[in-house]
């Protein structure tokens, strides 16, 4: 079926990830090997419930923070940033300023 073999590309923390249409952003983040968020005490976390309840899958999508990635489908060119990458970026900013 052409529908399932066709792929689309998005980026997770700057790295390109190719997925089939219908793939959730949460799955793409896991495929990229990234933790979705860092907990308040510093633990890396990935989705637990997969259904929009637990909020462990929150990432930034196209600049919009706190998106529940398990309920959002990948779109071509989507830019996904996980909290792990964001906190690194912030730390780098602090060092340079």
């Amino acid at each position, binding site marked *: 079926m052409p529908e399932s073999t066709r792929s689309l590309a998005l980026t997770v923390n700057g790295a390109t990830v190719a997925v089939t249409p219908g793939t959730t952003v949460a799955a793409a983040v896991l495929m990229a090997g990234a933790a979705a968020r860092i907990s308040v005490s510093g633990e890396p976390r990935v989705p637990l419930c*997969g259904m929009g309840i637990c909020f462990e899958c929150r990432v930034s999508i196209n600049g919009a923070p706190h998106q529940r990635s*398990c309920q959002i489908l990948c779109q071509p060119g989507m830019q996904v940033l996980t909290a792990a990458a964001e906190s690194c970026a912030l730390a780098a900013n602090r060092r340079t300023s």
Partner: protein
Amino acid sequence: MKDGFDILVVGAGPAGIAAAVTAAAAGLRVGLVDDNPAPGGQIWRSGAHLPAAAQRWLARLDRSSVVRLHGWRVFDCPQPNLLCAEPNSAAMTSESRVRAELSFGKLILATGARERFLPFPGWTLPNVMGAGGLDALVRGGLPIAGKRAVVAGTGPLLLAVAAHLARRGARIVAVCDQASRLQLARLAAHLVFEPAKLWQGANYALAMLPARLRTRCWPVAAHGSDRLRAVTLRQGAKQWDVDCDYLACGFHLVPNIELPTLLGCRIEDGFVATSEWLETSVPGIYCAGEPTGIGGAELALLEGEMAALAASGLTHQARGLARKRRGMSEFVAVLAKACSLDPKLRALASDDTMVCRCEDVRYGALRSRANWRDAKLHTRCGMGPCQGRICGSATEFLFGWRDTPVRPPIFPALLSSLASPDTPTEDLVAAGAPSHSAKESR
């Protein structure tokens, strides 16, 4: 409001789909709002291998006049007969974000259920997920072929998940149910009288042959540094480690009753109380599916149809369904018994085990608290974005705490959604965008 929906259905799983399709067939103006990108709920999550009944109902929904809002989350009820929803999709820019105002004559709540999670050391490690959680991610595109998975917890969902993961090429290294063999035998005996369920059960069992189901067995610890590497399982006095890539662990289901609670519907023993015709304690508000009692998709479909007929004033057409439902009510009780938790599971968490994942509150900080409210005030347990949906059912089992009443917004919402002028139902329907995009994605 004259331009609102005659009937609004919240939740597009089996109960919600059956309710919406049935009410639309009665000639009413029907709205269906759900926070997932496509209809089907959790049990009929899109992807291959949908049962025939699911395909039939989804096709009926496609042919119906139901106005569908997929990817919209209801977060408030600012006045009677009006719900507010916010779109999930980040594809929308901040300018086009709107708060939807959904007005209705009658309301059918089909909000479904979620998994119950119990804390044990290491359960917050990446790749420790819910049983339904991992299943949902795999259906959402996560490759699982060649990965080693342990499926654990309790309930019939475990076998369904293990079978599905195995079909997708996962190596199921263990399936453990905390229930006793006797508990499961009683459930199995009941399934004999339900041909459809028996068929499903047999299918699960056949797919499962390589890894046998262990009873009275559960994970006591998950190990790894950056992510899961191994799980310690315990069965009676025996304890051993299993290397794995994923632990899919869920302890049956708990109903999503936040919205019914917000609306003032009476809750009894954790479920929404209804009349024989599925009307809640609030006139004009009906409830169908798992929030009235965990009974699976078959019962949810039946209740969805019943609730729609009752809400449409066609109770006389629902008599046959009501009779059938009474016959199935025993199954709800049998299932609950089969999934009742072994008190020994209360000893799983140690003092430094996380209980509240949002606020990182550990078991040791909660042990001395008097109740849920006390824990919230002193430790921030349940005060994070999930609003206690995960730790609430855990602390209920661990400490016997019951949630206090909910307050709006029942999900975190943007300030702009809380404060912005409303988009009235008729504009939203005229724009057609929300439901249209979701239809295309299927």
